[in-house]
């Protein structure tokens, strides 16, 4: 009898232990565009999937997402819903969601909130903020572009002149100027993160004005890539995600946001009881930013060497890039 009770107790203890270990961390992410946008939202979703796989799969981390939240009030409702449902970490992946996080986070003090791109945690103990030093990869892409342009005209397309769309483009212009100050850069802002057709028209406008290099930021730049593809011969530089697959013959390189290090650190800090108050910045130095060269594009060795030198210089702070 005693033996049976001992065995039963052992099973119960084991079951409890397994239960304690197996409780997965539940993470929800709210994104302004689709997880498949080949840009900002996809960069975060890919990182979450990667972290989930690395840390034990679905038994360790449960992921949920809400995409295409262009409308901020809808996003705010989704953020609150996930927190109400007991999700451990709620990621509001868009700089437009800051005021929503600021309002909702105090109502759920045990929930971790992360939002970006921005650096403001609002002084709240359960809010992390994150951003990307997009100007750094922009500079490297600019160096490459300056070495490859023949017309000395470069076109840039973006949604609105804020956030990492602006800093990327500013860094790109600095990279161009560091090689050749005579290169003309013209910028077009479409006013929309989602209007692919207008972005394509903006790209065609640059091409018609003589640009032979294009770049741009936001999920709608796939429209610009399509325009570059149609034109033949115009090169493209990507940012946020690796865009080589969209036009293997035209994409030279992409600045890739890698959020995995940040996500793992947030998970570790949460486990240690730190629910927020920290700001992360992806940089070339900390590996959060990576330059993905398109293997299908035959980049001259000397050009790649110049870009690598610029990247190393930025990482070592011998090359200064203004945000």
């Amino acid at each position, binding site marked *: 009898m005693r033996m049976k009770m001992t065995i039963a107790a052992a099973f119960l203890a084991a079951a409890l232990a397994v239960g304690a270990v197996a409780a997965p961390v539940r993470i929800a992410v709210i994104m302004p*565009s*689709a*997880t*498949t*946008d*080949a840009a900002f939202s*996809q960069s975060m979703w890919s990182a979450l999937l990667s972290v989930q796989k690395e840390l034990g799969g679905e038994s360790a981390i449960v992921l949920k997402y809400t*995409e*295409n939240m*262009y409308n901020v009030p809808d996003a705010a409702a989704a953020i609150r819903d996930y927190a109400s449902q007991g999700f451990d970490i709620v990621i509001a992946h868009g700089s437009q969601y800051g005021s929503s996080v600021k309002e909702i986070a105090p109502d759920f003090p045990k929930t971790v909130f992360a939002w970006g791109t921005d650096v403001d945690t609002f002084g709240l103990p359960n809010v992390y903020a994150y951003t990307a030093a997009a100007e750094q990869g922009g500079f490297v892409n600019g160096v490459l572009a300056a070495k490859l342009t023949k017309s000395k005209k470069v*076109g840039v397309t973006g949604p*609105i*002149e804020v956030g990492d769309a602006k800093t990327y483009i500013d860094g790109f212009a600095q990279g161009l100027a560091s090689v050749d100050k005579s290169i003309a850069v*013209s*910028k*077009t*802002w*479409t*006013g*929309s993160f*989602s*209007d*692919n*057709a*207008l972005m*394509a*028209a*903006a790209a*065609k*406008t*640059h091409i*018609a*004005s003589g640009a032979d290099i294009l770049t741009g930021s936001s*999920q*709608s730049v*796939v*429209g610009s*890539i*399509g325009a570059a*593809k*149609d034109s033949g011969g115009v090169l493209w530089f990507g940012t946020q995600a690796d865009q080589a*697959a*969209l*036009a293997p013959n035209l994409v030279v390189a992409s600045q890739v946001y890698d959020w995995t290090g940040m996500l793992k650190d947030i998970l570790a800090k949460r486990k240690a009881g730190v629910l927020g108050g920290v700001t992360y910045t992806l940089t070339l130095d900390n590996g959060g930013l990576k330059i993905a060269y398109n293997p299908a594009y035959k980049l001259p060795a000397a050009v790649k060497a110049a870009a690598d030198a610029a990247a190393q210089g930025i990482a070592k702070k011998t090359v200064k890039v203004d945000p």
Partner: protein
Amino acid sequence: MKGSLGLAALSGILNTMLSLAAPFLYASIGEVICQTSGVVNLGVDGIMLISAFAAFYATLTTGSLALGLLAAALAGLAMGLLMSAVSVSLKAEQGVSGIGLYMFGLGLSSLLFKELVGTVKTVNTLPPLALPLLSSIPFLGPVFFRENALVYGAFLLVPISWFLLEKTVAGVKLKSVGQNPAAADSVGIGVNRVRYFGVCLGAVLAGVAGASLSIGQLGLFQDNLTSGQGFIAVALVYFGGWRPIGVLAGALLFSVANSFQLWMQVLGVKVPPSLAVMLPYLLTILALTLTANRARQPAALNKSFERGEG
């Protein structure tokens, strides 16, 4: 502005205007036909989305742009039948039905894209067709006569739809059920049948509008690809006073303003970008205010038909 650059800019503005106007022409003229029969279809954007996806996916899987276009038209037809069934046969409130159709198209296109494709992929776009002789005319040739088939088709649709509405029996029937369905019914015109025709033809054209984006201009599909263009297309119907020629004027005004603001930025004209992107909308609202002509609105618009009423 230097002379050559000024000419290049003018050429660029006009050329971009044509390609930007094409989807609006298909969708808006389709909506003119639909509304002429007395049915408001606010689901144009949803039809464009599902058709844009159908065109893209058919092209991606078969490599045939013609099949892509056919798929878009069929998707548009299916959406038109759905809208007709709900708003004509079941007599649901048309505005609400249209919004429901939009949301259905938005959600279904996103779901299908995620399940069947997974990530952004590209396909070839319709190639430009240089029209013999015309494309060789200095300045005008490169601007107007080296477009893809869907751009030419959009502008040809203006006289064709005018002819349909003004010079054919089908046009007379469409107008009669849109103006006074009871009177049309009394002379033996099948009101619901004609309305099905109007809604479905409009939806097929909205489908072609979607294709003109996904395989005509961009060579890809992405969630919410239309970015609300279908709603602008509906607004252009009111702008154009339910006439194809009026819609043409509205589509060209909106597109040339958009094209102009892009060129202003490229040329470095010192205008805040946020102000520049507002220009097309400001101009369109201004023109709409000045030219609004409700007298031409079909009298039975947004009214379901029940034999014995009215």
